[in-house]
């Protein structure tokens, strides 16, 4: 095989680049991840959710969530029609008092929906990764915090397990880990999103009802979606700066 000097000069850098990419392989840490370039949140498209529980199972697998505790769970709402007596008197307000079930967090599906009146729908829930979170404000030891890229995390070596944050969360998204005896919660799969992957729940969602969004990324479809859809957050009156956006959320959801 005859290779000229010119060919060698072209081939060598090409081989070096190729070898570099071989060495890189699967990125273990995240050297190219810059915290200040991201502001994470999630979009939940209620009309797409089929209540299969894939997200709950995936989260449990990915994050070793103990049985009976949930970092994400799915609720099924049933908002009945306005119940009236024969004289036309309204007896209850389904907007204030809807029927909500979540058997084992919706992990193994839901019982049959039998009532023909009203409407049924699924509401997946998880940490809202609030920008002004009550849970981080009450921590007496600085064990929970919002990271510079907008993810509310718990430092397991600092947490005392006082459960103050569990009480402070308006969305009920925290629990005390039964073995570690420290506060545990959704990390928005921080170990995944910093490597360029999506969260386990989004990866496992078969209908695309969940989407990880980066509010600092101008190319993220969330910006167009927020402009063109009726998107809400839970408990906006609490001014938590929640970043879990719900599309087409029913007024009865709390």
């Amino acid at each position, binding site marked *: 095989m005859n290779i000229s000097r010119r060919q060698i000069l072209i081939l060598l850098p090409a081989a070096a680049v190729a070898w570099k990419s071989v060495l890189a392989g699967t990125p273990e840490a995240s050297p190219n991840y810059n915290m200040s370039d991201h502001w994470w949140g999630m979009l939940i498209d209620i*009309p797409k959710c089929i209540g299969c529980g894939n997200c709950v199972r995936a989260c449990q*697998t990915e994050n070793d969530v103990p049985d009976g505790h949930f970092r994400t769970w799915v609720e099924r709402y049933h908002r009945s029609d306005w119940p009236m007596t024969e004289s036309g008197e309204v007896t209850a307000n389904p907007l204030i008092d809807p029927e909500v079930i979540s058997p084992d967090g919706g992990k193994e599906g839901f019982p049959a*929906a039998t009532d023909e009146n009203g409407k049924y729908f699924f509401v997946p829930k998880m940490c809202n990764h609030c920008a002004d979170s009550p849970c981080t404000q009450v921590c007496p030891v600085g064990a929970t915090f919002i*990271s510079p890229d907008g993810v509310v995390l718990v430092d397991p*070596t600092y947490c005392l397990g006082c459960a103050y944050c569990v009480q402070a969360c308006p969305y009920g998204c925290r629990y005390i880990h039964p073995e570690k005896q420290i506060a545990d919660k959704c990390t928005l799969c921080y*170990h995944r999103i910093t490597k360029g992957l999506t969260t386990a729940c989004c*990866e*496992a969602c078969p209908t695309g009802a969940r989407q990880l969004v980066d509010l600092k990324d101008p190319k993220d479809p969330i910006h167009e979606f927020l402009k063109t859809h009726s998107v809400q957050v839970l408990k906006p009156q609490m001014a938590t700066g929640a970043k879990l956006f719900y599309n087409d959320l029913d007024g009865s959801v709390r």
Partner: protein
Amino acid sequence: MSVFKDAKHLFVFAGLFVLAFLVFLVVRHYVVPKSFGEYGHYRGAAIGEIASHPIKFAGHQTCETCHSDVLDVKSKGKHANVNCEACHGALAKHADDPSAVTPVLPDTTVLCARCHTASAAKPKGFPQVAPADHSGGLACSTCHKPHSPAMDAGGAK
């Protein structure tokens, strides 16, 4: 200096105070982690520790690097946007060492029913059946190919 004539106890107290403050600074230096306060009132290194947890779901991009044949079939069918691990489960270990960990083929009678069992609570446009009436206990894969489930899609795998 008659002003300080009887002030010795004050100097002793001030000295003790300064000493205690120095002890506090020394103890604080050793007790508080270096990265505490790096980004805010918390240990900055905790972010990196949480980010270094191992992943369990490899992600569909990883699957597709080897299983591009399945991707070709899937991308033409109704399940184009259903990620591999939504049905096959978390398989990062398989992706790391394909020969050591072999994925188990899911049982379609259980798997398909999770999503496609009819319920009034599901969105109206979503394809749903009552499995007992629909197939009489036969596995879904008898007629449908899970990667491209439409009946007329042909011999897709």
